[in-house]
């Protein structure tokens, strides 16, 4: 008998952290992540989860506490969103540089000003260069599965990097969906124990962490993180395949997922919950005898450029949908990262900023535009008021 619960995305994230049996949680509540830490605090309070829940006064302290906990060899989890993630910014670099396999759930939400609690992906995209691995979930089931996988990926000794699992604020965090909860035994068996060889607390073998790296050494340490990101490409695929084998749920190859791209001359590229809407539109158009494809990017960092190139061979028109904007360049981050590798005509569509609804009609408008009138490297804002 499968255990299926009808729960929100934040609950799915909390369940995943519980299943992975985390040792330390340090988090500060912020909409739309709050319900996740409430749930975790419940688990700890009623004895379902044997973990240390550190109450902190800000997100800066939350991530600092996580780095400290992880430095002793504890399995660590945190969750945040938007302004909270922005406040963590400087410590995110430290977490990656110190090679702390922290797992974070980030509820994607717009940044101020004006203050806005709704969804776009500007917050996590702004942390692109911190050295964190970034994964994007399409639905609540994928959120749970990605967080379970994240612990295994992060703690792999060829990777040892923190991971941010992103889910769209409100669209996933506050929407209830049926989520299959695997057995704890099975999950623990899959994830395994975290036994760090590099950072641990053992009084008989003291160590210095977070030391100064002068110009003699600093560049090598950055290159180490880059190599770990390269290794992560392989590890993410391996972990995904093992997960699919054990739990029977697969998401493309773990890095990207293609949907109907074989016959399609026009392909859309995006991340997160928007992929669900696009799949529906593709199905509708397929019924009319038109072939369109979707390339969903699960792993944004490390970015699997080779796989993306391979998947888009023979494509004529590519629309890249971004829920973020680099102001002053008028391009989204996904476009600036992916477009240089693509030979086809590629246009950029800025959608859904600050929770602006993205309807099926908008997707059809994008498809029509990219097929007919779009120029290469053009940017178009979708759903703007006249």
């Amino acid at each position, binding site marked *: 008998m499968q255990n299926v619960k009808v729960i929100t995305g934040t609950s799915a994230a909390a369940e995943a952290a519980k299943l992975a049996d985390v040792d330390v949680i340090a988090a500060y509540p912020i909409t739309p992540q709050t319900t996740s830490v409430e749930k975790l605090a419940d688990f700890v309070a009623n004895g379902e989860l044997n973990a240390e829940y550190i109450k902190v006064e800000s997100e800066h302290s939350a991530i600092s506490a996580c780095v400290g906990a992880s430095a002793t060899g504890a399995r660590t989890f945190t969750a945040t969103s938007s302004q909270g993630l922005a406040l963590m910014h400087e410590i995110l670099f430290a977490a990656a540089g*110190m090679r702390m396999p922290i797992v974070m759930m980030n509820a994607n939400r717009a940044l101020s000003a004006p203050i806005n609690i709704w969804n776009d992906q500007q917050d996590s995209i702004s942390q692109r260069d911190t050295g964190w691995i970034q994964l994007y979930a399409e639905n609540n089931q994928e959120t749970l599965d990605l967080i379970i996988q994240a612990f295994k990926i992060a703690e792999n000794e060829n990777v040892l990097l923190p991971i941010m699992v992103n889910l769209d604020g409100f669209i996933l965090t506050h929407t209830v969906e049926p989520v299959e909860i695997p057995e704890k035994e099975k999950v623990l068996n899959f994830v395994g124990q975290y036994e760090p060889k590099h950072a641990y607390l053992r009084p008989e073998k003291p160590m*210095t962490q977070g*030391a100064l*790296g002068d*110009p003699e050494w600093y560049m090598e340490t950055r290159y180490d993180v880059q190599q770990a990101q390269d290794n992560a490409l392989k590890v993410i695929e391996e972990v995904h395949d093992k997960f699919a084998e054990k739990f029977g749920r697969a998401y493309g190859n773990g890095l990207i997922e293609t949907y109907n791209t074989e016959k399609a001359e026009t392909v859309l590229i995006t991340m997160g919950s928007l992929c669900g809407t696009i799949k529906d539109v593709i199905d509708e158009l397929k019924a009319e005898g038109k072939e369109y494809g979707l390339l969903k990017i699960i792993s944004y960092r490390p970015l699997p450029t080779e796989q993306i190139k391979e998947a888009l061979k023979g494509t004529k028109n590519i629309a890249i949908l971004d829920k973020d904007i680099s102001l002053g360049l008028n391009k989204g981050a996904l476009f600036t990262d992916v477009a240089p590798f693509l030979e086809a005509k590629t246009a950029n569509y800025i959608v859904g900023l600050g929770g602006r609804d993205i309807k099926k009609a908008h997707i059809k408008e994008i498809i029509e535009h990219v097929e007919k009138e779009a120029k290469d490297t053009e940017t178009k804002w979708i759903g703007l008021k006249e």
Partner: protein
Amino acid sequence: MVNKGTIIYEPGNSINNKTGSWRVFKPILDNDKCIKCENCYIFCPEGCIQPDENGDFKIDYDYCKGCLICEEECPVKAITGIREEK
């Protein structure tokens, strides 16, 4: 090579960091003028001026950061600061 996460397991290994690499000025010690008063040896904040087996003072340029306190303190002007040439 650097350990993962720049963790240090052996105390005292910061000696490997050649901190003289960011020097702008370089003190040159003329042993013919030197009267062995040990002022430079006492005042050097890095402790990188040491006497050799003949009692001549030598500056360890691997760690000298070129603060030129030694030049300031030398009573007989045996030390001159020049611009570092790399």
